[in-house]
């Protein structure tokens, strides 16, 4: 490859990294090798050489196309229509239209707006001493999940005879029968899935929920999945794998585009089930859903999706911060629809409530 072509590829890789695709040096090296086998001058070949080597996730593909178009001035292929990850956009004026009929209604204050506020929340303002203390305690929670039997076998005191190891022992003894070795199914913790509602009405509690989720991810990094639900679904598991809670939360906050926006819980839950849950993430897992149940969309949709989740998951735990308040009754439309399908309804307003949640997860 000529030096100028090399410069172009390296420049493109830099653009791609800015766009959020992890184009690591070894991947870039692979692209250069791929181009050696193809025609560097052809835009189509360049496109595919880069896409096949630099991307590693369906989410990367749209970013790749955008970066490619920006850098080379257009994408040389016609993309087949793909299922879009985000939810449908809703016209911004719907809120006023619906709100005018029930003016002065006190429930309106608690209800989330449909407007998607694409802004980043500033965590710098939360430096009160008690709050720091609570955060430190949350980080120490390390929730553990109940165990299940796997298909993998391990050594055991008793159980089925382990033919392989028994015969190995026999071979060492010159073929004489000897002590029997046994094996039994290993046990492994169940997967934990945290679905956190980050809409406006959950704002005072979302920070604690995400810190709890971070503690869970740190306790079992490859057995925990965390998503946020708002007007769209965002997977933040990767961001939360960082060791330092503050750094992890900063990264997660940056990744959530709809922080403190509206809620369409049923729709977001459906996207989760379609793209992750049904494929396997929710199967046999303990699913913790943190939300106050304020649903801007259709409560029957939420009910149907929670029912679907309950059929896939081992246990569904609903964390509602309002449950800890005196006189609380689950009467919001969303809660009423979801209630028949959930296994545990717990509070999530205090540190004690989160400790109780950790206990329930461990016993689920």
């Amino acid at each position, binding site marked *: 490859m000529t030096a100028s072509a090399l410069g172009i590829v390296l420049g493109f890789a830099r653009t791609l990294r800015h766009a959020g695709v992890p184009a690591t040096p070894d991947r870039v090296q692979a692209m250069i090798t791929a181009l050696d086998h193809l025609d560097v001058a052809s835009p189509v070949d360049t496109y595919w050489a880069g896409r096949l080597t630099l991307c590693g*996730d*369906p989410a990367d593909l749209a970013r790749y196309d955008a970066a490619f178009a920006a850098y080379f001035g257009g994408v040389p292929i016609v993309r087949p229509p793909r299922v879009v990850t985000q939810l449908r956009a809703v016209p911004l004026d719907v809120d006023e239209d619906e709100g005018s009929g029930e003016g002065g209604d006190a429930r309106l204050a608690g209800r989330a707006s449909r407007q998607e506020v694409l802004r980043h929340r500033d965590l710098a303002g939360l430096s009160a001493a008690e709050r720091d203390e609570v955060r430190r305690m949350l980080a120490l929670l390390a929730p553990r999940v109940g165990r299940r039997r796997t298909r993998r076998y391990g050594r055991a005191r008793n159980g089925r005879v382990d033919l392989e190891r028994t015969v190995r022992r026999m071979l060492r003894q010159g073929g004489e029968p000897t002590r029997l070795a046994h094996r039994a199914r290993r046990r492994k913790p169940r997967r934990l899935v945290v679905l956190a509602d980050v809409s406006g009405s959950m704002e005072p509690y979302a920070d604690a929920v995400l810190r709890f989720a971070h503690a869970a991810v740190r306790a079992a990094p490859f057995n925990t999945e965390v998503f946020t639900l708002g007007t769209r679904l965002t997977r933040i598991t990767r961001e939360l794998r960082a060791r330092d809670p503050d750094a992890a939360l900063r990264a997660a906050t940056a990744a959530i585009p709809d922080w403190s926006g509206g809620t369409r819980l049923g729709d977001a839950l459906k996207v989760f089930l379609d793209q992750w849950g049904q494929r396997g993430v929710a199967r046999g897992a303990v699913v913790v859903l943190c939300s106050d149940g304020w649903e801007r969309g259709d409560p029957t949709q939420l009910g149907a999706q929670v029912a679907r989740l309950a059929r896939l998951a081992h246990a569904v735990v609903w964390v509602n911060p309002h449950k800890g308040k005196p006189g609380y009754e689950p009467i919001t439309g969303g809660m009423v629809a979801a209630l028949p399908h959930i296994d545990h309804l717990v509070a999530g307003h205090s540190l004690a409530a989160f400790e109780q949640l950790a206990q329930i997860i461990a016993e689920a």
Partner: protein
Amino acid sequence: MNPQAASPQALAEALERTGYLPDEGLATAAFLALSMHRPLFLEGDAGVGKTSLAGALAEVLDAPLVRLQCYEGIDAAQALYDWDFPRQVLHLRAAEGRDPDELERSLYDRRFLVARPILQAIEQAPCVLLIDEIDRADDEFEAFLLEVLAENAVTIPEIGTIRAETPPLVVLTSNRTREVHDALKRRCLYHWLPHPSYEREVAILQRRLPEVAERLARDVARVTARLREADLLKPPGVAESLDWALALHLLGARSLDADNAAATLGAVLKYHEDAVRARATVLAELTG
């Protein structure tokens, strides 16, 4: 190099001759996997033709296809090699009284080794090794696979290292039931396999089921494409549209109408909720 794999276009044509119709991206991916000796990592919805690509590639290269189906709990003894213990014990009993050192050497001979898919592929190379549904295996298994894919060799402590002279063409597939580790993906060419376009799907149906009437093939492709957009729990893949076309053909249909579609819906939709939804929306349009 195989003349059929001289360029992405040549490979696409060769694949088409076997009955597999790849799009440009997939042909380029397979071509690069062959010329760069890198594993090909395919992701996409169930039934879009990930597994059948491996079969088609084996046919094009005129090489055997070795398949390793992954499942939870799969380990090295099922993927790599195992010792044939009962035969070893018999050998030991039969050879009693011989020199112990020689006996031990003869005990760990190649003939007592049972080759599982990965060792088979290394020994048989050139061949196509299909590692199907890697997302179903545990993550410990991935780490182990990484070693084999990087070296194209299997080390057996008692025998030594068995290395492939020409590395096998490795095709990995995943349905994304969980995320596969980056370390594994980094060593592979990554390709997302989309559902085919309408024209390509018609071509696939006609190619694979030449007995089906052209009108029926077009109808099935059109309605299947509509079903994929109908927000179903499990959108139908190419495998389902092939099943559907065949089912309709066996019932003597020459085109799709509301009645025969309703009767054969079980071939294409596998969830009760989906069938109800499809009857109310897509199939209702057929009558109208």
